[in-house]
C-alpha cells in the first residue's frame, strides 16, 4: 500500500513537471513571447520588459528560472491587470468557483447514485426507462445548451431566478444545476450498470440464501460493491466541474476563476492563462492521486498487493 502511494505520487510529480515544461515551451510558440498585445510595444519598451522578466536570457536559463519560480509557487504577473499577481487573482477568484463546484459535485453524486440504483432495481420497468431516458439525454446535451435553456426558461421567460452574478443563495441554483447536470447523468448510468452487475453476482445469491431481506441485501451487500467504480469517477468529475465552470461562469457572469480564465484567453493574457492552467492542472492531478488512494482504501481486495 505504502509502495503504491509512493509510486502514485511520484507519477503525479512527473506529470506535473511534464505539464509545466510543456506549458513553458508552448509559450515560446507565441511570437514576441508572453508580451504580445494588440498595440505592439515600442522596441525600447519591449527590450525593457524582456530584461525585466529575463526574456533576453538563453532558453535554458529562462526555463530554469521559470521552474524555480514555480517551485516557490509564484505564477507570475498578469499582463492585462497591471501589476496584479496571478497568485492574487487565483486567490480571489477560485473560492467562488470552488463553492459552486463543491455543491454541484455533492448533488451530482448523491442524486446520481440514487437514481442509478433505483433504475437498476426496477430494471425493465417504466421507472428504469424514464431514468435511462433522462440520463442518456443528460450526457448528450453540452453544458452550454443546459445553461442557456435554463437561463431562457427559468430566468427570462418565467423570471423565477436571477440570470447573472452570485450575490444571493438563489443565484446559485441555475449555475449549480447546469454544472451538476452532466456528471449526475453520467453517474446514474454508471451506477445503474454497476448495480446490475453486482445484483447478478454470486454473493448476492448467498445473501438471499442466508435469508436477508431484499433491502438489507441491497444496502449491505450490493451498494458497497456497486459504488466503488463511482469513486474512480470522482477524479474526472472534478476535472469536468472545473472546466465546466468556464462555460457556466461565462454565461451567468459569475466572478469565478473560470470567468477570469476565459477573459484571459480572449484578452491573450498569457501569464494568466499559463498560471491558471498550471494551478488547475495541479489541483486535478492532486485530486486524482487522492481519489486513487481512497479507492484502494475502500476496496479491500487491493489492500495487500
Amino acid at each position, binding site marked *: 500500500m505504502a509502495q503504491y502511494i509512493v509510486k502514485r505520487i511520484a507519477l503525479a510529480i512527473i506529470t506535473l513537471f511534464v505539464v509545466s515544461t510543456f506549458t513553458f515551451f508552448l509559450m515560446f510558440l507565441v511570437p514576441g513571447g508572453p508580451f504580445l498585445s494588440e498595440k505592439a510595444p515600442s522596441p525600447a519598451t519591449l527590450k525593457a520588459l524582456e530584461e525585466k522578466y529575463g526574456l533576453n536570457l538563453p532558453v535554458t536559463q529562462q526555463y530554469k528560472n521559470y521552474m524555480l519560480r514555480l517551485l516557490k509557487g509564484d505564477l507570475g504577473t498578469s499582463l492585462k491587470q497591471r501589476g496584479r499577481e496571478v497568485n492574487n487573482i487565483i486567490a480571489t477568484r477560485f473560492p467562488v468557483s470552488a463553492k459552486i463546484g463543491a455543491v454541484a459535485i455533492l448533488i451530482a453524486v448523491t442524486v446520481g447514485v440514487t437514481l442509478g440504483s433505483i433504475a437498476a432495481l426496477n430494471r425493465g420497468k417504466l421507472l428504469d426507462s424514464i431514468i435511462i431516458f433522462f440520463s442518456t439525454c443528460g450526457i448528450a446535451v453540452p453544458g*452550454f445548451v443546459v445553461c442557456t435553456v435554463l437561463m431562457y426558461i427559468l430566468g427570462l421567460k418565467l423570471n423565477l431566478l436571477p440570470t447573472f452574478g452570485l450575490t444571493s443563495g438563489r443565484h446559485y441554483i441555475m449555475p449549480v444545476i447546469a454544472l451538476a447536470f452532466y456528471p449526475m447523468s453520467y453517474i446514474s448510468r454508471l451506477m445503474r450498470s454497476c448495480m446490475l452487475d453486482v445484483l447478478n453476482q454470486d454473493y448476492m445469491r448467498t445473501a438471499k440464501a442466508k435469508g436477508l431481506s431484499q433491502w438489507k441485501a441491497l444496502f449491505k451487500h450490493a451498494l458497497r460493491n456497486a459504488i466503488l467504480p463511482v469513486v474512480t469517477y470522482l477524479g474526472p468529475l472534478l476535472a469536468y466541474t472545473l472546466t465546466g465552470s468556464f462555460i457556466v461562469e461565462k454565461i451567468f457572469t459569475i466572478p469565478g476563476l473560470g470567468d477570469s480564465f476565459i477573459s484571459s484567453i480572449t484578452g491573450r493574457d498569457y501569464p494568466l*492563462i*499559463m498560471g491558471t492552467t498550471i494551478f488547475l492542472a495541479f489541483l486535478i492531478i492532486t485530486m486524482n492521486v487522492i481519489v486513487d488512494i481512497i479507492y484502494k482504501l475502500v476496496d479491500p481486495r487491493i489492500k495487500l498487493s
Partner: protein
Amino acid sequence: MKNMPLKIDINSDKSLPLTFHLNPEDFLPAEEEEKQELVVMRESVSFWSDGLRRFRKNKLAMASLFVVIFMLIFAFIIPMFYPYNYYQQIRGSEALAPFEYSEKELAAKEAGEKIFPHVLGTDTLGRDIMARVMMGSRISILVGIVASSIILIIGSVYGAISGYFGGWVDTIMMRVVDMIYTVPDILIIILLSVTLKYPLQNLATKAGFAWINRVGVGLISIFIVFSMLYWVGMARIVRGQVLALKELEYVSAAKALGASHKRIIRKHLLTNCIGTLIVTTTLQIPASIFTESFLSFLGLGVSAPMPSLGSLAATAIDGIYSYPYRLFAPAVTISIIILAFNLLGDGLRDAFDPKLKN
C-alpha cells in the same frame, strides 16, 4: 410408489389405456436418420450475422442509426441543393425572423420569382441561419469522425504493441498512458489552441500549406490535441484485449509458423478486437463532437466565417431574449447528433461486444 408411476399391470388381460395404442413395431430400433431429425440444432451463426441480428432487434439502436443517417444527409447532402450558403450575406435581408422575407425578396416574389424562405431566418449580417446550422453540423460531424479515426489508429497500434510485447515495453508504455490520463485534457486543449495559432498561421503562408487556412487553425489544433491526448482510452482498451488474445493457441501457432510481429498484431490481434474497436470509435465520435462544441463555444474552435454548432450558439447567446431560436437551433441540433451517436454506439456495443454477449 410415491409418485404413482404409470406401470403396466402385466397380470391384467384388458389392455391398460397406455398399452392400448402400443404395437410391436413401436419397439423396433429407431433408424439413425429418424434420431437425427429430432436433434434440432439451432443454426450456428457467425459473429457478424449474430451481432447484426441483435442490432436489428434493438429498436432504439435502429432508430438512432436512422437519425445518424438523417443528420449526415442534413449536413452533407442538403446543403448542396440549398439555395443559400453559410457565408453569403444577403443585403437587405438582415435579422429576419423564421420564414420572414425582406422587402426586396417580397418584391421579387410579387414579380413571380420563386424565393426560397429563410427557414430559420437570417442573422444580423444577413446570412441564412439554416444554411449555417447545416454547415455547423457538417463541421461537428467531420471533427467527430476525423478525430475518432486519428484516435483509433494511434490508440489501437499503441495498445496492441504494448499488450503484445508485454514486459518492460508494456510497463513504460502504460506509464506514459497513465500520465496522459491524469493530465486535464481540456486545459491542455485550450492552451494548445491558444498557442498553436501563431506557428500554424506562419506555416499556412508557406507554399503547400495553404490548406491550413481553409480548414482553420482552430480545427487543426483540435485534431492535434485529440491525437496527442485522447487516444489513451482506446490504447488501454486495446491493450486489455490483446493481453487476453495473445494467450490463445492460434497466436502461438502463428508465432510457431514464423509470422512476424507486425503480421501477428495486424492480422491476428487487431482483427479479433474489431468489435471493440468499432464500438469504442463510435462512442468516441460524440465525445469528440462534445469537446469541439465546448471549444467553439469558448471561441477557440473553428475560425469565422466558418460556423460550428458551438460557435453559432455562442454568438446567439447575446440576443437570447429577442432571437431565442438562433440559439436553440444549433443547441438542439448538436444535442440530437450527440444523442444519436451515443445510442448508436451503445447499440453496437450491446450487439457486438462479446464481453457483454450474455
